[in-house]
């Protein structure tokens, strides 16, 4: 018990006096997850509007596939991306780079973001689209009006996607390779993969410090969500 308490104290002192290793690892985590979300969000928004508001054959099957993919195990995604990026695959040369990690996170979070956005759009009353129509809106203006009604749901989708990306360990470990240079600067090491490595080395203070940063991040994400989902506002 005393040892654990000592580790917690050491972790907090690390947090208040962060070294290059800790800072660069946090930065890599943010960069990779942030870029993945930035790439995923606009594409998902357009696709979600088309799927939720459009009427075309195979729409139900497509929604089922998206919902299934929302629960994709991250190691499976990592494995698939590894095969695609390996020397034998079509996109060689990207493996063990932050770009590879962005690609795997993109594959991982897009179904989640898309699924939450579709639910948000379908949660908007059909009367809203009708109201827009009878006030003279054309199809694009109606779609935009419904998307605006679902704006909180869209933000929730973004926050949830970022949360999943930053807390994910399996795929970034497989395609990123968990690389940190000799001077301690992280190249493809993220908060989660660093926890794996540090705890294996018995370096519990560092592992705990990373864990605390992650927890604080998840707390911030939930605070943002709670703020956005004030009662009475649009979902």
């Amino acid at each position: 018990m005393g040892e654990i308490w000592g580790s917690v104290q050491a972790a907090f002192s690390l947090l208040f006096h962060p070294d290059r290793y800790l800072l660069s690892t946090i930065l890599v985590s943010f960069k990779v997850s942030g870029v993945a979300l930035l790439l995923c969000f606009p594409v998902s928004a357009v696709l979600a509007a088309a799927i939720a508001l459009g009427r075309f054959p195979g729409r139900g099957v497509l929604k089922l596939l998206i919902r299934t993919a929302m629960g994709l195990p991250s190691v499976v995604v990592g494995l698939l991306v590894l095969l695609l990026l390996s020397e034998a695959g079509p996109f060689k040369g990207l493996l063990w780079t932050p770009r590879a990690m962005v690609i795997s996170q993109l594959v991982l979070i897009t179904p989640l973001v898309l699924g939450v956005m579709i639910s948000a759009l379908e949660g908007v009353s059909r009367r809203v689209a009708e109201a827009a129509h009878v006030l003279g809106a054309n199809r694009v203006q109606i779609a935009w009006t419904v998307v605006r009604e679902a704006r909180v749901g869209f933000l929730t989708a973004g926050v949830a996607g970022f949360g999943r990306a930053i807390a994910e360990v399996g795929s970034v470990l497989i395609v990123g390779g968990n690389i940190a240079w000799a001077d301690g600067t992280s190249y493809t090491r993220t908060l989660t993969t660093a926890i794996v490595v540090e705890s294996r080395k018995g370096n519990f203070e560092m592992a705990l410090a990373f864990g605390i940063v992650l927890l604080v991040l998840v707390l911030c994400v939930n605070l943002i969500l709670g703020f956005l989902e004030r009662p009475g506002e649009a979902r």
Partner: protein
Amino acid sequence: MREIIAARDLHFGYGRREVLRGVDLAVRRGEILAVVGPNGAGKTTLFRLLTFYLRPQRGTVEYFLDGHRTPVREARRRIAAVLQEPALFSTDVFTNVAYGLFLRASCGERTRARLARVLQRLGLPLALSPIEERVEAALRAVGLSGFAGRRAYALSRGEAQRVALARALVLEPDVLFLDEPTASLDPESTSVIEGVIRDLRGAGRTVVLSTHDPAQARRLADRIVRLAEGRIVEVVGLTTNGESAPPQSAALWG
């Protein structure tokens, strides 16, 4: 031609359930036409066909806003409707009422109105933009002057329905459709909405309203069309030239 809307032989069904079975209806310029009938008679579906929200499975809807046939796109810009549910957008009252105006406004007019609102919120005394003036006038007409800054979700049902009415009125439409505008509303909102309809009649506007309350139809309308099981079964009021309906039978109106 006095006809402003000509609907011929309208058929519509949801799946196998046929809701409208051959409705012929002519709406005349400047009249208040009430469509009455029990729930499920097809009133809302008829309104959806007349406002082009749904396409008839058979039959046609034509507008003659300027004497000759008006293209659908133009007709849609010159009509407006209030649905049975207010269906307000989750934002403030101003943005709700200004919705149709923003759709029709130029980029400059939109920017001016938005900028003026931001500056007013910051406490800068500034002349109202043309869009704001029209919104304020529409809100005054429904007795909600000063409500522009309120959030839509914080309104009572009656206030929300009046905002929905203002949202349509502000467009000064050639034809205004009101689908059960006072269903389950408080007496104050009902009397305000009925007052607005009377004012519209005074101004020579065309209004098509549906109601399940025959007394209200008699109070407000120049002509009453009774819909039952997807067909027009009776027309009461002025002459029924050109209507494929049976002769008047006031007895049904007890």
